[in-house]
């Protein structure tokens, strides 16, 4: 946020709103190693799992590579012409022995491989869970102002698709990469042990294969990018054509749109065809390099080691252990790149500044009388547009205060400052004589009840939603609260009553019903001060409206209440009316007093009389 002021020159630099990794002003993002390190930090709690995984991996490497050695032994020892001196029965018995060993090795390999893969999934999922929890926790503790800047959509992207990319990064980029490197190195060492000259001939294949695969992978990725951009163009045209069908028709544009769709679809087809053309090289390249490896091997064998039949067969067997890791490495090294881009974004979010911490020695707040005072409060969401200017006001305990004024006068900001969604720029707000910043946030908010403009309910049951008001509230308390705000009756009528699920695809409540449930929630919270952001909405029928009015009465009962009011009937009965205009308190007093003074309030009232929402 402080970045903002340093950027004063760049008027419309949108980047100031973005979570970018480019801190410290330099264009270069932090090094990849930095993010690897931070990822490792998250893996720390699971280091035991990682160590065991590494051991399993080594065992897998060994058991995998011992297999060809056994084959070599079987051929040289019992099958090759050189072994002909041994009696046939001994040779068969020896072979059987080796076959059993091989079976055991295959079993070991199987077990090690599976347990390694499972363990690594386990670790990866837990690391990812921790990251996801951290991202979630982070968003929940960002200042409201920062949330407004970052937008919910972008935060969602961090919490979903970027974390998905990190999952791939962990699985393929780190774990898979390491495993394949070890498998490859293991195979290289073992074949060196068998016959170093053959091994050298064999190593020749590595750069060729990796080079070729990287080449086609790169081309294929490029084509895939083109295909993606072609398909997103096609999709947005399709979307447009579907949602703009009527416009297209009345402007006689259906044919033109159709042509456009055909062209774009054809571009997509062409790009996909390029992808196919590159991708279909993959297996043929594997086949041909494998054949060349075999050819070189046979030649090398013929030149240098004609008698080493066992080694040759063992090598033929090794090809498989050579090619699989190579093939995967070519793919994974590229995934690493794209995964790191997401890592950068996620960690940049985790580096965001949080809400300032609670004071070290907070003022205790067990009970609130309800005296509220604003002293010279100034506030702006954006520097250039002050919302509240030198606002001072005083509210006595138990008062019912109505805040009135035109849209944009700063009414709801007043309430948002009181419960510290935002902090004042200058001046102070006192509750019972103490600056509200001297309390802990949770203490403060416990005593302030908010009636929101849009009564938002969370997924879960009706009882869950009411129960949010007070931790550990029992069914009886929940029902009592619902009764007092007139919600009990309609809840009871629902098939599952209080256990009705309100989640996605669950029961659909009307706006009025949501209001009532939200009111029950506040009643359960039992705060001393009520902040009412809005009265009953216009979108409810008159019967429900009456219920909500009564519910509000129940909630307000005896408490200090500050309400943003639009309804003359409500305003008339207020103990104090605050009239706001352009962020200033222009008039205050009771209805009668203000009417007599014949000022701005009077014209507001006139407007309200004819039902105009101000």
């Amino acid at each position, binding site marked *: 946020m402080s970045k903002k002021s340093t950027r004063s020159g760049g008027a419309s630099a949108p980047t100031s709103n973005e979570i970018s990794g480019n801190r410290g002003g330099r264009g270069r993002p932090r090094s990849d190693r930095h993010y690897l390190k931070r990822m490792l930090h998250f893996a720390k709690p699971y280091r035991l799992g990682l160590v065991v995984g590494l051991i399993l991996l080594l065992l897998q490497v060994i058991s995998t590579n011992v297999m060809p050695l056994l084959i070599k032994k079987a051929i040289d020892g019992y099958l090759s012409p050189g072994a002909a001196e041994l009696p*046939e029965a001994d040779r068969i018995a020896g072979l059987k022995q080796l076959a059993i060993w091989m079976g055991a090795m*295959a079993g070991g390999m199987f077990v090690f491989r599976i347990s390694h893969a499972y363990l690594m999934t386990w670790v990866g999922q837990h690391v990812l869970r921790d990251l996801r929890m951290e991202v979630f926790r982070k968003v929940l503790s960002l200042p409201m102002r920062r949330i407004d800047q970052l937008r919910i959509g972008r935060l969602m992207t961090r919490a*979903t698709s970027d974390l998905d990319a990190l999952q791939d990064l962990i699985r393929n980029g780190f774990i898979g990469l390491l495993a394949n490197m070890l498998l490859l190195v293991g195979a290289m060492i073992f074949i060196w042990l068998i016959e170093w000259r053959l091994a050298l001939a064999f190593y020749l294949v590595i750069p060729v294969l990796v080079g070729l695969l990287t080449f086609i992978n790169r081309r294929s990725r490029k084509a895939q990018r083109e295909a993606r951009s072609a398909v997103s163009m096609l999709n947005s045209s399709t979307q447009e054509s579907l949602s*703009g*069908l009527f416009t297209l028709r009345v402007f006689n544009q259906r044919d033109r749109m159709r042509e456009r769709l055909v062209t774009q*679809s054809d571009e997509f087809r062409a790009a996909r065809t390029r992808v196919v053309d590159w991708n279909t090289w993959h297996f043929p390249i594997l086949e041909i390099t494998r*054949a060349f490896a075999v*050819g070189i091997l046979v030649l090398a064998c013929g030149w240098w080691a004609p008698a080493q039949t066992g080694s040759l067969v063992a090598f033929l*067997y090794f090809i498989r252990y050579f090619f699989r890791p190579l093939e995967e490495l070519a793919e994974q090294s590229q995934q690493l790149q794209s995964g790191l881009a997401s890592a950068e974004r996620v960690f940049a979010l985790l580096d965001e500044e949080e809400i300032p911490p609670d004071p070290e020695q907070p003022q205790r707040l067990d009970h609130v009388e309800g005296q509220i005072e604003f002293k010279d409060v100034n506030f702006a969401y954006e520097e250039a547009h002050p919302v509240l200017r030198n606002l001072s006001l005083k509210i006595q305990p138990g008062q019912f205060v109505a805040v009135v004024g035109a849209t944009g006068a700063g009414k709801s900001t007043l309430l948002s400052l009181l419960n510290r969604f935002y902090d004042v720029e200058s001046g102070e707000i006192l509750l019972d004589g103490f600056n509200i910043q001297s309390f802990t946030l949770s203490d403060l908010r416990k005593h302030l009840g908010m009636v929101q403009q849009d009564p938002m309910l969370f997924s879960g049951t009706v009882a869950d939603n009411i129960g949010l*008001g007070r931790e550990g509230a029992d069914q009886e308390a929940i029902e009592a609260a619902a009764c007092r705000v007139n919600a009990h009756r309609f809840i009871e009528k629902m098939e599952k009553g209080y256990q009705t699920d309100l989640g996605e695809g669950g029961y659909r409540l009307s706006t009025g019903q949501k209001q009532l449930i939200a009111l029950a929630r506040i009643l359960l919270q039992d705060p001393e001060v009520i902040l009412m952001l809005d009265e009953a909405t216009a979108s409810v029928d008159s019967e429900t409206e009456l219920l909500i009015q009564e519910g509000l009465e129940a909630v307000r009962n005896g408490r200090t209440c500050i309400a943003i009011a639009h309804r003359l009937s409500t305003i008339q009965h207020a103990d104090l009316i605050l009239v706001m205009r352009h962020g200033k308190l222009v008039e205050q007093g009771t209805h009668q007093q203000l009417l007599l003074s014949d000022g701005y309030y009077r014209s507001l009232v006139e407007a309200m009389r004819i039902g105009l929402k101000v």
Partner: protein
Amino acid sequence: MTHTTFSTKLRPIRDYLRLRLLLGTVLLTLVASVLALWLPRLLGDLVDGLVDGSFSKSALLKQVGIYMGVALIGALFSKWMRQLPMRWGPRVGHQLRIRLHRHLLQLDENQIHDRRVGELMSRLQSDVNSVADMLSMGGQSLVRAVFTLGIGFTIMFRRSPSLALMVSLLLPLLMFIGFLLIHSIRFRHLKVQEQLGLISSFCQESFGGLRILRGLGLGKIRTERFKILNQEFIQRNLSLSRIEVFAMPLIHAGFVLGNVLLLWMGGVQVIRGQIQIGMLVEFQQYLMIMQWPALSIAWTLSLILRGRASQGRLQEILDAVPQVTESKTRVTSAPESLQSIRYEDVSLTLNETRVLKNISFEVQPGQRLGITGPTGSGKTVLMQLLLRRQDPDVGRILLGGYDLRDLSLDLLYNQIRIAPQEPILFSMSLEENIKLAEGDVSDENLERALYVSALDRDLPQLAEGLKTRIGERGVTLSGGQRQRCAIARALLSKPEVLLLDDSLSAVDTSTESLILERLLSSLDRQTLCLISHRYAALRHCDQVLVLRDGEIIERGAPDDLLEAGGAFADLAERQRLQAALEVGDE
């Protein structure tokens, strides 16, 4: 406009098959399989030669040369064998899309909304893809599996029946395992996705409802619940993983097991002098080559199952038939311009609600009609009937004395232009958006439209003026700018009838009055229908209709209505007061 007939059947799969392509695939696969399956034999011979030392160095070179040559040619065929049928996928996808788009564009907007755009979009993508995949990938791997396995087993049984028998017992086992795994992985994968959806909507809910969460101090509880969701996510992932980790190792283990068995059974035969070592190598290679085609059968089956289901869903789209159609005896040209409007006892029911009840009114050529009324009173529907967004259930609408249903759509849409409240702009340049319907527009006309809609004042702020690209990949216009763009679009061709459907609602008051002023003075003999909530706009009309719940509750000249003191008078009074309050607020 072209008049497409509605042959609504999706062409059967065989229509997408081309004989040449099919034959080509079969031939290429045949050659590729033969070449690939020739290699083990060559390698076996090489090994035998090395074992008994019968090769001279030049003979060895020659043999290796042949081996590599066959491999190279084989690899090329293997590439073509894949490329030919796989290229077919994008092509079939393209053909399907063209067909679906063409059909969708003929439908009425109401039908699209019934199905919801999002759902349609996903069908157009995933279903088209899975049909294309079924035909290309599925076809390719099926043909390949048939040839590789067929030729492979033939060769193997001829080389060594006992070893071939062993391999032929192993492969079906692997196939079966593969089939089981694919199914259970798919199921568990869906479970994981489902939980991921829950997590993502939990985030959405929490981030979006942050103020409430904070107000109630629920951060900790939410975090706890998020943890539980994550725990379940881990469980489901691990449950998927428990199957998934088996897939590759199991296949691999099967392969290794096959090798061990080969070495043992074959080894005994070698020791007994029945076969040579080369044969062992040869069979090991067969096993390697045939393993994947065998496994791919399971995968191909699931591709085909999915493809068939998608095909059915696409057919459903094509089954929808548009309701607004042209009559066969349509009027395609009118002797004079069509300017008078007449609604005769029009009623309309949408979704079992009567949205218009017995509406009758008449507008003379060149008159200005104002329509007002609360949200949901039927104003927009009333106006859109004139453009045949749908046809009334009862009654009729006449334009220039013709029943709308007798006019050709071309003629109708050339007479009338509409600027809706929420206009659709397409991702093209601003100029193209304005000129949407008109090919050739004189600069004079364009300038007039820009002037009237007051867009001329915005142009300097746009980087590339009229050429500025609008939409997703371009500039996002404000709601007011979009509306004014729609007004310019509607004005461009000087239509006989101009419909403004609350098309200044997002424009600020001062610009609104400017536009109204310019608009009214630029209209000469055109008929104007204006939906508005603002008295300032309505007072210029010759006749005003006030709608409520689909009925006309007041009608008459604005001044008469003011005097009568009904809903219209209330509206005017309210706005007068509001204006008074807002003075100085700007």
